[in-house]
């Protein structure tokens, strides 16, 4: 070994935390825009003008240009596929490294053809910033807008707009200003502020790496005094470090080697230290970090966001792939139902109510879209008209999703890594979504969180195999007299007749025994529902389909019921038994409304106490208009396929 007198990076005494991207220190910039607006040409020009090309590459592109009968095509430096050169379009995204005097970059070329939108997303999803091209001679086009919208959906906030092909419009300032004002208006609608608009000619190298490629040449746009493209790249901010976010370590696998149990995964955000107490969602088991393994490296007691780690635990609890480790404070959300903004790239449309595989970090669950609030045309921002049971390729939609079992997540705006998911169709990633509007529950309220469950040898799947179905909780909520108990009893009978293990919990069997010490104050109502939730969860765990019929007027209480049941790994569905107060009052089977009106009963829901209607229930039954038979049928249709136990490769799903 010779000594290091050459200009290498300085030797570094201590390790530094990694920034958590696949190319820390390399700003990742994606080039997007409508087809043929000059993305590959601009990148080729940047590489050429900054002398970043190896000799062979320029010759290769020259040869290819000659073979296609062209003078010299800068785009061929990136469009390496024969088909791309023949058709002069970009088919798939390319990544290429280059550096300015300030820092190194990864440049991502994204195709602009609508047909290759999936490749554009593949390229853009990992970018820190974007250059969006609009050809001055064609102006703002369909993909100019769609790409702009997708950038905002992917969370890319740093955007520079390059108005290209200025040579084709005589370097007209007026044309530039008009494109700028039209596109700026579009970006405002989606909440994006472009850092700058730069008039360029990629082909002639104007305002790319300099005003002109040759200093002797006159500047055709003296009216533009702003930064060139490469100067703009240097102004982009590096990605924000994720160390300050709460810890999220999705477990990738559990290995056993050298007689030790090793948990592996990547610290997606936050910081992990030996001695930290971790809580693993969705099971809520806790243990302490005993060690951070580092084969061949120095002993370490801390791991930062972005690092792939291997750890051991002090207490050997049950952990498997998909579990997410966090600290006890600032734990993630757990739910089986959530809102998302979704984009679809599948060859087949996404069907409402059909089961797909959903992947979020290392979790994989069956999921379905249960409702679509609206479908947006990303190029016009208009809501697509018409009610349809599917989402088409290239659509963006606001949806509600439901997973089989609890999904651990964050809202995208509070933690990007845990706030996004993909949907798989036909073995391929076919759609992506970002989660919003989820509610963080205080885990300390779930008092059983720190209790170790004894894992007996009889597993839920053993019970499910014997019963032919899984345990589940159907949570009926609604005003007194809306029909909860009547429906629950009727459904119990139907399920019982069909050979299912089923039981109803309602006021009759709970209020008189287990909860006889509780009244109707808000505190007592909360405790009442808490106990019912725990009992229902245990019964579901024992394999039963449990139907609960309680007014349960508070959203918070019902949300906790859901969490308790989901923690046990069982299906939970909220059934909103909806009937107008007047209808319930007219029914008044037990004469309670009359007494409440007379003031003989205080804190009566609907009269003298509030009822918080479910915002997003799995099932809504309008008993004012539906017959009992129709309501029963709706519930049975919903629950039957969801609890079915099927033997497939010896795994009950």
């Amino acid at each position, binding site marked *: 070994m010779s000594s290091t007198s050459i200009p290498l990076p300085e030797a570094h005494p201590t390790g530094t935390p990694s920034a958590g991207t*696949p190319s820390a220190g390399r700003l990742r910039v994606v080039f997007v825009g409508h087809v043929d607006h000059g993305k590959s040409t601009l990148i080729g020009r940047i590489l050429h003008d900054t002398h970043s090309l190896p000799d062979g590459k320029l010759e*290769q592109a020259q040869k290819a240009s000659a073979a296609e009968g062209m003078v010299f095509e800068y785009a061929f430096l990136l469009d390496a596929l024969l088909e791309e050169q023949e058709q002069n379009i970009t088919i798939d995204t390319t990544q290429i490294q280059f550096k300015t005097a300030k820092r190194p970059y990864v440049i991502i070329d994204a195709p602009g053809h609508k047909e290759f939108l999936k490749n554009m997303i593949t390229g853009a999803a990992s970018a820190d910033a974007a250059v969006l091209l609009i050809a001055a001679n064609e102006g703002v086009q369909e993909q100019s807008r769609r790409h702009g919208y997708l950038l905002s959906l992917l969370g890319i906030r740093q955007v520079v707009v390059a108005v290209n092909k200025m040579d084709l419009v005589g370097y007209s300032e007026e044309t530039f200003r008009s494109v700028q004002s039209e596109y700026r208006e579009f970006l405002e609608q989606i909440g994006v502020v472009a850092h700058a608009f730069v008039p360029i000619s990629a082909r002639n190298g104007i305002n790319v790496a300099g005003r002109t490629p040759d200093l002797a040449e006159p500047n055709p746009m003296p009216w533009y005094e702003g930064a060139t493209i490469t100067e703009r790249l240097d102004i982009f901010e590096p990605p924000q470090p994720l160390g300050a976010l709460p810890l999220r370590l999705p477990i990738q696998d559990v290995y056993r080697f050298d007689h030790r149990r090793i948990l592996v995964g990547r610290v997606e955000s936050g910081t992990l230290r030996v001695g930290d107490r971790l809580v693993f969602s969705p099971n809520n088991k806790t243990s302490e970090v005993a060690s951070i393994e580092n084969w061949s490296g120095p002993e370490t007691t801390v791991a930062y966001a972005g690092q792939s780690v291997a750890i051991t635990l002090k207490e050997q609890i049950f952990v498997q792939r998909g579990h997410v480790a966090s600290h006890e404070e600032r734990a993630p959300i757990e739910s089986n139902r959530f809102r998302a903004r979704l984009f679809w790239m599948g060859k087949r449309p996404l069907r409402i109510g059909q089961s797909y595989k959903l992947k979020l970090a290392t979790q994989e669950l069956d999921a379905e879209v249960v409702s679509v609030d609206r479908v947006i045309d990303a190029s016009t921002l208009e809501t697509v008209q018409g009610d349809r049971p599917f989402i088409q390729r290239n659509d963006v939609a606001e949806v509600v999703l439901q997973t089989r079992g609890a999904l651990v997540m964050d809202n995208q705006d509070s933690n990007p890594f845990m706030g996004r998911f993909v949907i798989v169709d036909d073995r391929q990633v076919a759609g992506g979504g970002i989660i919003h509007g989820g509610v963080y529950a205080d885990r300390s309220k779930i008092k059983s969180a720190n209790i170790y469950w004894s894992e007996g040898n009889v597993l839920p799947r053993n019970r499910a195999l014997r019963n032919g179905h899984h345990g589940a909780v159907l949570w009926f909520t609604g005003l007194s007299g809306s029909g909860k108990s009547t429906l629950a009893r009727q459904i119990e009978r139907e399920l019982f007749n069909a050979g299912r293990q089923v039981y109803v919990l309602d006021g009759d069997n709970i209020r008189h025994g287990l909860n006889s010490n509780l009244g109707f104050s808000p505190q007592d109502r909360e405790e009442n529902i808490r106990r019912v939730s725990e009992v229902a969860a245990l019964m579901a765990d024992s394999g039963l389909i449990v139907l609960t019929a309680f007014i349960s007027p508070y959203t918070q209480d019902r949300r906790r019921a859901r969490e308790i049941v989901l923690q046990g790994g069982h299906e939970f569905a909220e059934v909103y038994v909806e009937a107008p107060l007047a209808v319930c009052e007219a029914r008044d089977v037990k004469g309670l409304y009359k007494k409440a009106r007379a003031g003989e009963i205080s804190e009566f829901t609907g009269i003298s106490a509030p009822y918080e209607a479910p915002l997003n229930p799995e099932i809504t039954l309008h008993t004012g208009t539906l017959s009992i038979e129709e309501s029963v049928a709706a519930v049975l249709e919903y629950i039957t396929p969801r609890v079915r136990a099927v033997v497939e490769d010896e795994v009950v799903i």
Partner: protein
Amino acid sequence: MNASELTLPDYSQHPAYAAKYPAPVPGGSPAFFPEKVSRADADHLDALEAQSVYLIREAFHHFKNLCMPWSMGKDSNVLIWLSRKAFGGHIPYSLLHIDTTYEFPEMLAYRDWAVAYHKLNLIVKINEDARAGTGAYAERGPIGYDTADPVTVTHELKTAALQQVMAEHQWSALITGIRRDEDPTRAKERYFSPRNKDFEWDYKDQPPEFWNQFTTSCAAGEHVRVQALLDWSERDIWLYIQREGIPIPHMYFAREGSDGKRYRFRSLGCWPITGAVESDADSIDKIIEELAHTKTGERAGRAQDHHERNAMQKLRAKGFM
């Protein structure tokens, strides 16, 4: 055998060594151990390492029956290192060497050394029929650099050999060490890239891949290429080898040719079609320094790449790495 007992024999008569690059001095270890040096851009290497380890662990989780092709070159030795990092020093899958029979003998010595050193479970595959002109090759006769062009030889002795050994072992995934900066078609690759039964790469319709969610299953007979070094550059590879002290073969370092100039290999393949480049770099520091100034492509010395326009695309579409 213990790795430390293996030494280089005398190769001075072997035809692989031409005037430009003489045979090594016999008696030394087949492996070069770099002195560990860590530098200020540790962040960048940390990030590359973390992503590669993540990819390797994903591959291991989703494809129990997987294999890691290993060419003994610098990138493939980094892959071995990353695998050991991922699994606490162990490598829970087989390695595969496709032996074209045109290997530099020094590389074969390195191979045997590394098997002992890393405790590898190595499978060696030669397309014997193609070399001998038997079986499916009876009509065409033996395939070799003396009888066919380099694209054909590369396809038959590497890709066809891979197909044969894949059929035998039914691997559903291969962990490979290709990098985006090596070739423009590789720049368009996915981390997890599906290949059909005929090994074809459907580069015109690749599956979406983002947010670290990959194509993690395939139909029977198909396989997925897990390209764990895609984000790395040639320079990154050298910086990492140096930082970690990863053992590599000696052939990357300059030796003096009979013309008095010094030469080294930047990329190692079959000896009849792999050229040494003029270089004084006899240490990793010098190699890294050289890379900062060179404008020659890494694979410029690899004849099969330049045989015809888009030769790499054609080779790769048919299953070449």
